């Protein structure tokens, strides 16, 4: 078992509050990803869990055992660092066995554990090498191997892929996903890269300025962000945010007038909105269609277009200065400055009130799952 429970956790450095009260439950075998912009406290949170930083207040429990003030080595956790933090003067074998050596475990037992971990990670031929003679991906695997031999309850990863090149990153991402299934382990993974978060996680924790914004499955975050921050953070290219005002509220939904021109009738249900309120209309680039200028009330001039092969990103600057992106099919052709109309898929639109909170929208059967 390895259930981690965090209650009202706070951390301050002098007068700077980094973690401002976090409650979190991590279940056995889950792959949890902490994601957020730099400086949001996600690495600090991980270091607090690992015991590398002292908790200011609050508690951390692992399987009913309070580990808030327990020494890092006694917490049954293992961590993979961003720089891998391999011991440069030790061979791969020694790097992996270091913790066991210190614990004074039987030599034959250590040998067996190291060989087992090496087999899982295909490190066998590299065991007698020093870290300097390894490539980035191999070092990464050694760092993971060092965690595996300790057989921890929870694996902690601190941006482990950020030092690898793009191709290797995709490869290691798959390997981590495979490892998670194979070891059936509980993993906590910190990243600023939302693609890693979306692809790896069972549960994503979006952090911002020392607070949890939302916890949920990747698709839950994508389809039902609780606020404008999460909506903007998850998904590339970013969701477009257009300012507007409420025109009417009824049982059928909300009618909004966007500052850039068009009026839309949205299916969102709200009891708090009243006509005249400021709102923000959010729409993802993939939920907009570009049509001829005369086919839509939402008329725009196309800016730069980027052809990525499978998709085409059209960048648009609206008359009132707002920016938005549209994801068009790969063979979409447009001239710079061309007039066009936009057709947003209103069933996929998001609505945020003046404070940035989401106005809930009806769930389609697929999204409700």
């Amino acid at each position, binding site marked *: 078992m390895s259930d981690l429970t965090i209650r009202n956790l706070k951390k301050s450095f002098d007068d700077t509050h980094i973690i401002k009260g976090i409650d979190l439950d991590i279940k056995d075998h889950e792959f949890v990803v902490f994601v957020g912009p730099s400086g949001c406290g996600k690495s600090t949170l991980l270091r607090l869990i*690992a*015991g*590398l930083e002292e908790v200011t207040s609050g508690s951390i429990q692992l399987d009913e055992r309070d580990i808030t003030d327990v020494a*890092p080595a006694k917490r049954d956790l293992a961590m993979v660092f961003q*720089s891998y*933090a391999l011991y440069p003067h030790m061979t791969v074998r020694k790097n992996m066995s*270091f913790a066991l050596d210190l614990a004074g475990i039987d030599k034959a037992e250590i040998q067996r554990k190291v060989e087992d971990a090496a087999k899982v990670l295909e490190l066998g031929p590299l065991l007698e090498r020093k870290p300097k003679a390894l490539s980035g991906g191999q070092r990464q695997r050694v760092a993971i191997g*060092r965690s595996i031999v300790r057989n921890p309850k929870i694996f902690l990863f601190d941006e482990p892929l950020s030092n690898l090149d793009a191709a290797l990153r995709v490869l290691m991402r798959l390997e981590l996903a495979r490892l998670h299934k194979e070891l059936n382990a509980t993993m906590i993974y910190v990243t600023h890269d939302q693609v890693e978060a979306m692809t790896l996680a069972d549960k994503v924790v979006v952090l911002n300025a020392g607070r949890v914004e939302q916890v949920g499955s990747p698709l839950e975050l994508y389809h039902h962000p609780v606020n404008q921050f999460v909506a903007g953070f998850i998904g590339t290219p970013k969701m477009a945010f257009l300012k507007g005002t409420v025109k009417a509220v009824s049982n059928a939904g909300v009618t909004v007038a966007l500052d850039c021109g068009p009026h839309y009738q949205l299916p969102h249900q709200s009891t708090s909105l009243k006509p005249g309120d400021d709102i923000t209309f959010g729409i993802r680039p993939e939920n907009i269609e570009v049509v001829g200028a005369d086919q839509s009330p939402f008329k725009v001039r196309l800016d730069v277009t980027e052809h990525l092969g499978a998709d085409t990103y059209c960048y648009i600057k609206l008359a009132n200065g707002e920016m938005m992106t549209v994801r068009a099919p790969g063979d979409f052709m447009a001239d710079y400055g061309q007039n066009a109309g936009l057709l947003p898929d209103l069933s996929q639109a998001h609505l945020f009130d003046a404070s940035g909170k989401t106005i809930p929208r009806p769930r389609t059967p697929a999204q409700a799952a």
Partner: protein
Amino acid sequence: MSISSLPAEGTAHASAPPVTVHEERQRQSRLSLAMVSPSVAVLLIWMAVPLAMTIYFSLIRYNLLYPGDNDFVGLENYYFFLTDEGFTAGMTNTLLLVCSVLLISVVVGVLIAVLVDTSFWGRGIVRVLLISPFFIMPTVSALVWKNLLLHPVSGVFAAVWRFFGAEPIDWFATYPMEAIILIVSWQWVPFAVLLLMTAMQSLDQEQKDAARLDGAGPVAIFWHITLPHLARPIAVVVMIETIFLLSIFAEIFTTTGGGPGYETTNLAYLIYSQALLQFDVGLASAGGLVAVLLANIAAFILIRMIGKNLTDKG
């Protein structure tokens, strides 16, 4: 090679620029040779002339008390120098001095470097204070130690001894070599601290974190992480300090004058005393060459032992 060939070359090619790549490369290499030759020539003269003169002096009878009596005596000077009763003492003392100071500066240097690596209030000032003895002239520091610290009547140590009711020690009479080692260490520990302190800053914090997670306490981290990390800078400290410690002179000259007897005479001081106290330039030259030979042997061993460590990437 001379400087005058430079403009001649330049003008010759200015009219007819080189055609092929090969010619151009040849011209370049000739030019660069001409450019460096003055400094190389000066260096050669600076080294070769004194060396040749020393070798010449070491082979003749050359005593300032008997001018004009400069016969060729072969290796007699070497024989006298090596069998001189001061030679064995000088060798032992040189070795003792170098090894003790190296040991002290590495051990104390590592400890201080590790201690000041943890942050505390006023660390910047402490660091400057730690390094400052290195910037004091050897003569000055030796005089300060002799007259203000170790002096049996007016020294600080004597005052401390008296405060506890003990008899003050006349350091330079009772423990002359230890006193010299103390002074020289005081000067060279800061050098080790300076190098090791900077090296400590390049120690990856995440490595220490990883070791903590692996269950290593402060002592285990010191042995398994910090010390291996400092291996290279320690090698540099040993190499550089050896070179300077072999020729320690000012500290001995200002404090004990090599005495009592030969107790604090090292090779450098022995050669000085033969040349300028006994006026036997021939004998001193022979001694100088023996010292050069020894220094080269030491350098050879050091570079074999440590240089490999420095270039080794593993």
